[in-house]
């Protein structure tokens, strides 16, 4: 074959260019130990996410000193959890799956970007050096409301950050003289023990209790206030632990209907 000299030079230059590209990218990924989204994770039944240990309750969990794992579910047309909160100076591994159709999980303006495919779990690890707020967009068309599918990622400073969950539950009605017992559960998904104070405020009354919640565990406690101090009527209450709160209300009656406990149907 008769190939012109210039053509030969061009051909060689083109091959060199191509090989150089491959080498750069290989170094830029494999060489630097950057893992791509791959097949690291097992498959999962999208209709049974509710029973799954990780995705049953989408959340962020601490797994090492500065290491966290986030279990994220994408579904038409939202993300769980939302917002996702992680501390600065941390390394977070995201596990993302989809409940229904294919979505994406993409932190706008960054290279944190993955498909969320029903049946598959995407895994990627991201380092967050600075506090900031990011938008999460779904960039894979997923249905008629696709354009409203968004989430938020908050990277917060270390002292603002915790993985505490608070829930509180109290009675609807009590008779004057009985005590109002509010059951409180404090969950700590960080590794270190959480030493804190649980406070119940109701009317002018305040009671508190020091608790220590072991890392990765929860404690239950009950705070009580004597209803005589409140008087008859409706009273709102609030339980606080650090920045978290939970509230409800109770009605103090002169006398309880005998079968009130059986569930009076007056609502």
């Amino acid at each position, binding site marked *: *074959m008769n*190939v*012109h000299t*210039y*053509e030969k030079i*061009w051909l060689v230059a*083109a091959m060199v*260019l*191509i090989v150089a*590209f*491959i080498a750069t*990218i*290989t170094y*830029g990924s*494999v060489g630097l130990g*950057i*893992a*791509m*989204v*791959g*097949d690291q994770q*097992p*498959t999962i039944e999208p*209709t049974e996410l509710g029973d799954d240990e990780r995705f049953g309750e989408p959340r962020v969990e601490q797994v090492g000193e500065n290491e966290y794992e986030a279990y994220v579910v994408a579904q*038409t047309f939202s993300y769980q959890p939302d917002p996702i909160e992680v501390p600065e100076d941390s390394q977070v591994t995201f596990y993302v799956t989809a409940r*229904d*159709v*294919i979505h*994406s999980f*993409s932190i*706008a*303006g*960054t*290279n*944190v*970007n993955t*498909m*969320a*495919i*029903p*049946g*598959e*779990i*995407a895994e990627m690890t991201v*380092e*967050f050096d600075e506090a900031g*707020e*990011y*938008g999460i*967009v779904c*960039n894979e*068309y997923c*249905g*008629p*409301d*696709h*354009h*409203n599918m*968004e989430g*938020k990622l908050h990277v917060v400073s270390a002292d603002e950050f915790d993985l505490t969950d608070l829930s509180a539950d109290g009675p609807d009605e009590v008779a004057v003289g009985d005590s109002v017992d509010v059951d409180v559960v404090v969950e700590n998904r960080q590794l270190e023990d959480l030493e804190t104070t649980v406070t119940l405020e109701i009317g002018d009354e305040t009671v508190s209790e020091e608790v220590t919640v072991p890392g990765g565990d929860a404690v239950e406690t009950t705070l009580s206030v004597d209803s005589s101090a409140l008087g008859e009527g409706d009273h709102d209450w609030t339980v606080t632990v650090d920045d978290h709160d939970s509230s409800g209300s109770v009605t103090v009656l002169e006398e309880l209907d005998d079968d009130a406990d059986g569930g009076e149907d007056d609502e």
Partner: protein
Amino acid sequence: MSNVYIDQFPAEAKVIRAAFYSSFLALALGGVFGIIQTLHRTDFLRFMDSVDYYTVLTAHGVFLVISFTIFFLVGIFTWAVTTSLDRGLEDIRFTWGWYSLMAIGITMTGVAILAGFTDAIDMSASVLFTFYAPLQAHPLFYLGLVLFVVGTWVAGVDWFRSWWAWKAENPDERIPLPTFMVLTTMLMWYIATLGVAAAILLFLLPWSLGLIETVNPLLTRTLFWFFGHPVVYFWLMPAYMMWYVMLPKFSGGKLFSDPLARVVFVLFLILSVPTGIHHQYLDPGIAEGFKFIAMTNTMFLLLPSLLTAFTVVASMEHGARQRGGEGYFGWLKALPWRDPVFTGMALAGLMFAAAGFSGMINAGMNINYLVHNTFWVVGHFHLTVGTAVALTFMAVTYWFLPQVTGKALWSRSVALGQVVVWFVGMTFMSNAMHRAGLLGVPRRTAEPQYEGFEFQAAVGSIGELDAQIALGGVLLTISLGMFFANVVGTALNGRSDDLPANEYAGALSGPDDAPLVLDNLKLWTAIAVVLVIFAYTFPLLSIIDRGGLFGPEVIPFPLTVESATTLGFALETAASTSFESAGEIATSALTAVMR
């Protein structure tokens, strides 16, 4: 008898006319949907519900990249085979047969899509041209696509029959270059379409008919991309053919090298298919190694395009020097810039060079994370299929239309204006799309304006980018209007006896310089098949092994309109600060380090 195509091959000219007009109809519809969605997205004009945006987008995608491009290319392929073999097709009824299959197929698909606009008919297919399960379209949508593709398969048989018959009479001759290009392209297409045929016939169609309960979303998606990457070469190879066999002629010279042109098409045949996984770098469930192989193949696929760039420029220079051009760059002035056919193709080629740059970014496994599914990608393929291919097709129409109708072109100056306006419009639209993509603005989104956050632009603002996109879109629409004015004007003209002869460019270095092995189509097909088997067997087996042939239990999502609630948060907030594109890549890549 004159030597205009319509006089040489009147029956074939009629089929080509039908194919061209089908193609232009699709282009017109696609263009209308294109400007509607441009103005909707950028929030300059929203007269429909955002829910309907996705029906518009499906129609834009399918009509433009399936019907416009493919109808046009079967037209020029028919021209190429008959002209270069200098013989009519074997049986014109067979030819009308495949044209009808294609026409019926695309009509069915089109009806299924457009029915999505009305609640009166219980039918929709707003699944975009990628139709990823578990999004589900009406069976008519899939069925129509099948017929259309089968039509193209039969068309290939038609051209092979011509070649076989010719070979029997000319046993010792080299395959003429245009026919060689048609045959290699079709062989590539046969291999490529196996993927989409399997996806539709084994899974999606039975599933939409309720014959099977579930599908494996990752499997059908992978089969789609098995086809979805090489289909871009199915659009591009006819444009390359035009650059090889027509552009040198319009430049006033000859093709630089016939053998190298053959090498390029053989490389496309071999390398086009085993690359599709590069669209799935971000898919969980596919091992990194497979993605890596796809990336390597993709990079090697740059070679035929780089070679084409050389040959095209060298041929143009030769033409210019024949016309008296001189100097290092001075010869550029000697090119026939007043000829819309030449200028359109040259501008298309220029934009393709820019597209090559953004394409290399896309192909890089790691940098792809930054741009995947953002507006960047839309900017990229409006340079490739939307300009390199579409503008080349429109430009050569100004030469082909007179050939197949026997009528003179209505207006050469409108034609010249048309290609220039397209170039300018696309420069605006595509550049702004690329930049918006780097900020994270997603593609395929009716209202890329969110409640909880704003996209941060470093230079200019989102508002400015949107304005450029809309301006570009309007210019493109004007350009399309000028194109159709010319098509209609030409059709209304009377017969002319003053048309150029039907011929294509000769070569400086002719086919006799090409090693015989280049014409061994069986060999190259075998190599292509082996490479596909290497690249795809393991990924497919692994996907099936992980997720099952029919996947996990998934709920189909027939996209009904009532399921949608549109929150119209029309207030689009303009971001303030931003950097230049290059800086944007660098900084965004630093924002988060992937491990």
